[in-house]
């Protein structure tokens, strides 16, 4: 659907290879845009008041006022129609029309120009006795609250609403998350945690209008390590930023997600004798899981416990889903230089430039769109910033692990390094990638395949995690469960 000042109209979406495409002529009809295909039908020029956007058939690139922009999927030109990925329309049309253009994926609405929409902000506060979730709207809106078995649903039956923070993860186990699902009635779903006891709600007419939901908790269990079964491996959750800090508990660590690199068709590196990286990483990860549980009493989960292909972003999403305190990705290295040997521990490199430009993009997004919603562009930006606030801890964890690895395996330490590893990008917790040894080196390949050497490596990893835990306990000594955590995004 397209909403503009003069009214609404339906758009025809076509799905091609997983991308939703829409005919551009239908979108810009009546908006004063001239469409000019070139003679051979390879490109289409959109012009309005001297500004130009050029689309290219079967390319996921477009020229916007001479600057190249990437699109989420290739443009398709066929039978005189030009199909454009709908979530890329804002970056094409906003500069062309010099108007606010916004794609709201959840509500399936493209908004052109200034269309008034109530703006909803979600605030969560976690205390010892429960959690409070407040939905605040700048205009008076109806809130419809209903309680289901595992969740509480709030509907706001208005045409369009703008949601400042569509997803909030909540610590403490009373409420697990608050998520904007959209739909006709603009539904929010509040997932109840295992400690949920009962709900009280109250409303203030405003403005600003407020719905206050108080979720009371069961008394805190004495056991530190819950025996409850882990959350199901659902579809990867939407990217999360501004995740509520997990309250520290005597050293702060409870859950570790271990990521055995590669898997399935994607075998990773291959040693000269044929040893596969995906097998070595899974063997080490399994040993590490039991060693962390038995040695340090931590819950540990694997992103894959069999030989299967798992997309990189799903691995970090898995750790976010489990609200892991640490994410450790296990790999075996390979180099074109056959003499290369030794272990390396990586954490994510963030160039100041990148972060600045992303923050800027975020601010621009807010300024231009009047606040982020469930749009595709914004989700990417937040996902990409998930690891940013944990870099210091990630660096400390990498150092402790590398020191122990160098000690135990006797391999010459190649040190702690930084690189833009995709698997670490979306992790909303301290995260490292361990290159245990070089599988491309014949001697190290043999060691990697041996049980004894794998056990040595695992013991080094456990010591590293343990020393990091002590370091963090010293730092967070004064903090205990019950600290009020207000997830905020500034």
């Amino acid at each position: 659907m397209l909403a503009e000042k003069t009214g609404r109209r339906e758009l025809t979406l076509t799905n091609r290879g997983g991308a939703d495409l829409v005919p551009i002529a239908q979108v810009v009809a009546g908006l004063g845009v001239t469409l000019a295909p070139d003679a051979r039908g390879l490109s289409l020029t959109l012009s309005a008041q001297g500004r130009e956007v050029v689309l290219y058939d079967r390319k996921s690139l477009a020229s916007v006022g001479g600057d190249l922009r990437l699109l989420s999927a290739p443009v398709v030109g066929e039978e005189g129609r030009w199909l454009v990925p709908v979530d890329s329309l804002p970056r094409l049309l906003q500069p062309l029309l010099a108007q606010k253009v916004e794609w709201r994926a959840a509500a399936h609405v493209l908004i052109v120009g200034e269309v008034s929409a109530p703006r909803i902000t979600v605030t969560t506060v976690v205390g010892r006795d429960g959690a409070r979730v407040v939905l605040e709207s700048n205009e008076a809106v109806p809130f419809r609250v209903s309680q289901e078995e595992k969740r509480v649903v709030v509907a706001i039956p208005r045409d369009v609403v703008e949601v400042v923070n569509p997803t909030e993860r909540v610590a403490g186990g009373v409420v697990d998350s608050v998520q904007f699902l959209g739909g006709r009635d603009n539904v929010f779903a509040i997932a109840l945690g295992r400690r949920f006891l009962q709900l009280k709600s109250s409303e203030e007419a405003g403005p600003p209008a407020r719905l206050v939901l108080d979720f009371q908790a069961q008394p805190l269990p004495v056991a530190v390590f819950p025996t409850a079964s882990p959350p199901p491996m659902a579809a990867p959750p939407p990217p999360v930023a501004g995740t509520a800090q997990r309250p520290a508990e005597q050293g702060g660590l409870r859950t570790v997600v271990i990521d055995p690199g590669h898997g399935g068709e994607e075998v990773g590196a291959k040693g000269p004798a044929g040893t596969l990286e995906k097998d070595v990483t899974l063997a080490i990860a399994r040993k590490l899981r039991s060693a962390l549980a038995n040695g340090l009493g931590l819950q540990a989960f694997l992103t894959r416990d069999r030989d299967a292909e798992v997309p990189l972003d799903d691995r970090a999403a898995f750790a976010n889903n489990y609200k892991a305190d640490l994410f450790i990705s296990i790999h075996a290295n390979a180099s074109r230089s056959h003499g290369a040997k030794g272990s390396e521990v990586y954490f994510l490199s963030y160039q100041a430039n990148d972060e600045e430009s992303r923050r800027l993009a975020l601010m621009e997004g807010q300024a231009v769109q009047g606040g982020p919603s469930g749009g595709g562009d914004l989700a990417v930006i937040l996902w990409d910033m998930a690891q940013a606030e944990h870099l210091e801890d990630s660096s400390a964890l990498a150092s402790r692990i590398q020191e122990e690895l160098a000690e135990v395996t006797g391999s010459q330490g190649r040190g702690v390094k930084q690189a833009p590893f995709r698997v670490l990008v979306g992790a909303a917790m301290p995260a490292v990638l361990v290159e245990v040894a070089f599988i491309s080196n014949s001697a190290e390949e043999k060691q990697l395949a041996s049980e004894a050497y794998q056990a040595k490596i695992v013991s080094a990893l456990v010591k590293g995690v343990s020393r990091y835990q002590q370091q963090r306990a010293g730092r967070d000594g004064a903090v205990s469960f019950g600290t009020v955590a207000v997830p905020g995004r500034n």
Partner: protein
Amino acid sequence: MTPRRANLITVGLLVLLFAGMAVTAPRWAHLLRREVPEAGGSSPAPAAAAEEEAARVERRINVKLFLQAPDRTGLAIEERAVTFSSDLAGQVRAVVEELIQGSKSGLQPTLAPQTRVLEVFVSPRGVAYVDLSKEAQGLSEGGSEAELITVYSIVNSLTANFPAIKRVQILVEDKPATTLAGHIDLTHPLPPDMTLLAAAPVQPVGSAQ
């Protein structure tokens, strides 16, 4: 006709001949320098700039290519003369194609030799987009080290040679790629990383032909 008059006509004809040569020189001058390969796609220049353009045709510039060090992990630099092109995207393409060709001084390759450069764009903000064929993906070595070396052999080579290029994004088959072999994030333009230079620098080898 007096001899004096004949001399005048001869002089006049000679002047005309020289003038004609001077004006048309840019059109045939390159024939005298046949051994120099012409820069591809140089467009015809207006008469005033034609002479300068003709001089440019033979210009070559030295570029630094970042390739795998032969005897240790990391990148080493090889200098090479390539044909100068006034078009930045064309020059970038030439450098990436040289990288694909590999070393002439004993360094190791960083890209499969079958890889083709499909497209190069340089944005006004200093981001070079390098679109490579699918052979760039799924490196036979498959490890992080090898992948880092491949990615930064391109990123470092382009940012080191062209001050206008600040960051590089590698695309594969016309599309943004997540990674080449499961490790290094290609979804954003990357700035150079000079820490990947091999520990003991290899002497640069000039291999200009």
